[in-house]
């Protein structure tokens, strides 16, 4: 029943063949179709601009004050492309293979191959927009290496690649807004999707300044609303990132794929106390020269410089002698958790490990370390107040990215006709683990180079009744949302939305974070409904509904996290294998390596909403590997 619409034929010809088979909309007819784009990060802004250039009527929505604020802006490292400018043996095929293997063979071959093909067009497009990528002295583009690859294929703009690419897409979007091809709605948050006659026909939003609930109709809806990493309360995501748009679409009939595939990044600045509102990522590149260790003895509270060499445990070097401190993200993260759970963690909370540059400084000199990591050391000092040249850094893993998302077919359309999902919000390309520098690539591929073709096919094959915001379905959703808000305001309980969010985050982090097991997941499945029940009885919100109300905004987001959490738990419980970011403690080799089960789980788990009180229904999309051999990842 789930038809991924993957074209037949050799993998390298699929996208070409598909583009030929897609129906077209005549240039003069494009202005008869209106597309709503929710979210203006890399995927949303690039889609909105590209569709406007084609002639479609486009309206774009962001809850921020400007499209330039989207969280894509925080990506540091770079963007992959198979240009092979470095002549080191890269190719589309190699980028395809690395991405598929990095995802632990839980992604679709055809999608990943297309992504690798389009990677080159992205770099061309961004350079033409004036993105100031790093250059060599000869004036040509520079590349660097990144995790999970043996070639140098990452393009970068200092440590701000995400910012520069987003500003490129933002400039294209701004140009379209200036030409009145796109109507831009800022400070408007989507509350729900409106489905009419089985098709996605609009959204209902809340104006975050006036509090007004408003309807917007369209002929298709694009969700480019990012991931749900904030389910853990603490993550590297921006504070407003939330699951509402994709979760509401799920409740309206869009299937949710692989919700338990979340990525935990090993090198973040640890939590310093209950006041903590977010975690800051430190580039993974630090692990090239830093050595990770904790004291050998439990409860050793001496300052790091007073702990002698023989009383330190360089646990990654000990356990994974060939990869050492450069072991992959999932393995490094889990090992840090193990030593901290063992009572040997550092930092005031006991949840931190040292990343020590003493040996590197001795070997290379402070100047060289400064040249390599100066800006990161500065950022660390700003946040922690300690000088990492003299005192070892403290790091700890944090939630960073979600590979799961709404299920989409090869055309990026969900199970609701007309609802398309792009970027981190969909599930399609990263399998169970995303490689570094691939998120930017996917967001822009979806927005610039996939959706402009596939959405035309949807319009050409369907007919659309004329509707507007007065349609009864819009009125129904508006009424439901207004009632929900009034209900929230009337509870007048004792706990703030942030307190509920923190509580949920703790349950999810402990039971569905870096390590998961059956009893923990089952316990969480009991705890989450309890928190949710209390939320609806004991929530307090100040202020009014028809005003700028930061407490209400937060409560609406937390309410959806509290429901969504259960699908994540069910998915983690029923995927009885370990793969990528999903580590089930029951499924490991004696040496602690993840034990993947290709015989039973080489598929996408796709969840269908079946009513609030029921367990969601699990469907599967089998993954067919015709071009690669499934290999076991080993880093010994």
């Amino acid at each position, binding site marked *: 029943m789930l038809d991924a619409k993957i074209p037949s034929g050799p993998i390298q010809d699929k996208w070409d063949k598909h583009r030929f088979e897609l129906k077209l909309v005549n240039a003069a007819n494009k202005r008869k179709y209106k597309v709503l784009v929710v979210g203006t990060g890399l995927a949303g802004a690039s889609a909105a601009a590209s569709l406007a250039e084609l002639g479609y009527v486009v309206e774009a929505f962001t809850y921020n004050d400007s499209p330039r604020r989207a969280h894509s802006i925080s990506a540091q490292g770079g963007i992959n492309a198979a240009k092979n400018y470095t002549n080191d043996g890269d190719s589309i095929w190699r980028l395809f293979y690395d991405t598929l293997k990095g995802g632990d063979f839980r992604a679709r071959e055809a999608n990943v191959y297309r992504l690798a093909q389009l990677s080159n067009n992205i770099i061309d497009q961004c350079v033409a927009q004036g993105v100031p990528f790093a250059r060599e002295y000869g004036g040509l583009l520079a590349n660097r290496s990144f995790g999970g690859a043996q070639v140098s294929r990452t393009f970068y703009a200092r440590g701000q690649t*995400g910012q520069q690419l987003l500003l490129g897409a933002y400039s294209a979007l701004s140009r379209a807004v200036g030409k009145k091809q796109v109507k831009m709605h800022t400070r408007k948050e989507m509350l729900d999707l409106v489905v009419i006659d089985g098709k996605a026909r609009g959204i209902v939003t809340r104006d975050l300044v006036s509090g007004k609930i408003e309807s917007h109709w369209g002929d298709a809806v694009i969700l480019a609303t990012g991931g749900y990493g904030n389910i853990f309360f603490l993550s590297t995501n921006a504070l407003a990132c939330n699951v509402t748009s994709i979760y509401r679409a799920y409740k309206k009939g869009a299937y949710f794929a692989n919700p338990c595939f979340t990525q935990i990044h090993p090198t973040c600045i640890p939590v310093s106390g209950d006041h903590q*509102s977010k975690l800051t990522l430190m580039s993974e590149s630090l692990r090239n020269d830093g050595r990770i260790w904790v004291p050998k003895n439990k409860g050793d509270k001496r300052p790091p410089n007073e702990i002698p060499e023989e009383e330190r445990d360089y646990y990654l070097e000990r356990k994974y002698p060939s990869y050492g401190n450069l072991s992959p993200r999932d393995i490094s993260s889990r090992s840090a958790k193990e030593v901290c759970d063992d009572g040997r963690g550092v930092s005031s909370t006991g949840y931190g490990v040292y990343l020590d540059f003493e040996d590197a400084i001795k070997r290379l000199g402070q100047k060289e370390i400064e040249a390599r990591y100066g800006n990161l050391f500065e950022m660390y000092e700003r946040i922690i107040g300690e000088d990492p040249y003299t005192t070892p850094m403290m790091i700890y893993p944090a939630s960073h990215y979600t590979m799961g998302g709404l299920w989409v077919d090869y055309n990026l359309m969900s199970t609701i006709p007309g609802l398309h999902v792009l970027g981190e919000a969909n599930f399609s390309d990263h399998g169970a683990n995303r490689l570094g520098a691939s998120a930017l690539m996917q967001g822009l591929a979806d927005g610039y180079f996939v959706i402009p073709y596939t959405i035309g096919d949807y319009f050409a094959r369907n007919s659309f009744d004329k509707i507007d915001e007065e349609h009864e379905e819009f009125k129904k959703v508006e009424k439901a949302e207004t009632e929900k808000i009034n209900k929230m305001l009337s509870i007048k309980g004792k706990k703030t939305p942030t307190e509920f969010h923190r509580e949920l985050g703790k349950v999810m982090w402990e039971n569905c974070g870096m390590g998961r097991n059956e009893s923990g997941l089952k316990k969480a499945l009991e705890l989450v409904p309890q928190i949710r029940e209390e939320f609806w009885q004991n929530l307090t919100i100040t*202020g009014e509904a028809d005003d700028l109300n930061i407490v209400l905004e937060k409560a609406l987001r937390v309410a959806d996290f509290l429901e969504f959490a259960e699908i994540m738990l069910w998915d983690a419980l029923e995927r009885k294998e370990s793969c990528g970011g999903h580590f089930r403690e029951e499924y490991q080799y004696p040496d602690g390596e993840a034990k993947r089960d290709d015989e039973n789980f080489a598929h996408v788990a796709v969840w269908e909403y079946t009513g609030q009180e029921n367990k969601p229904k699990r469907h599967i999309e089998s993954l067919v590997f015709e071009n690669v051999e499934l290999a076991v990842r080993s880093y010994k």
Partner: protein
Amino acid sequence: MKLTLYIWRQKNAKSKGFMEKHQLDGVSEDMSFLEMLDVLNEQLIHEGKEPVAFDHDCREGICGTCSLTINGTPHGPEAATTCCQLHMRKFKDGDSIYIEPFRAKAFPVIKDLISDRSALDRIIQAGGFISVNTNQAQDANALPVSKEKADLAMDAAACIGCGACIAACPNASSMLFVAAKVSQFALLPQGQPERKRRVLSMVEQMHQEGFGACTNIYECEAVCPKQVSVRFIAQMNREYMGAYMKNEE
């Protein structure tokens, strides 16, 4: 730490604002400035009072959303640091701290510490782009760019669009913001075809929005969290003069 906070409260764009005094106890020096405000807000909610509205999002100094004037300085006392990355260890027990929004005629206050900076978007919409449709690009290496120019363009492109430069300027001039974008594109070969038209339209829009002119005070550079240099203002002035004198339209 125990702090006395004086915070700008304003119900909405139409009402008059005032400074409200709050005592806050138990502030840890490990908190960021915004986390300190989070703590205050949680307390206010528990007391049934409306929390202080302020803009923020990434909390890692790159999205440009946070916009507080702290003790009279946009983003506060630490150089090259947005207020989301400012930490409380920069303050002392017993300090009084004055917190206001970014102020300028073109940045009307929406509520409390939130001001409307959409004027900056409209300046970009007027010309802050290179007109290239999707898929019109040539190969990325077709036009070499010298490393020096690319690096300089990146220095300008580092602007996060927060508007601190405007809030700090006695003229509420947005010249540093506009100059950063004009210079980024003027330095790159891809930006040449629209070079004149761009600077003329962006400057025109800047005037229409009600931003003042630059009188070389350099407060903008002093508060810029990304240390964008005023040399770009000089470059924009040259660009503008050249374009104005040789206006082909």
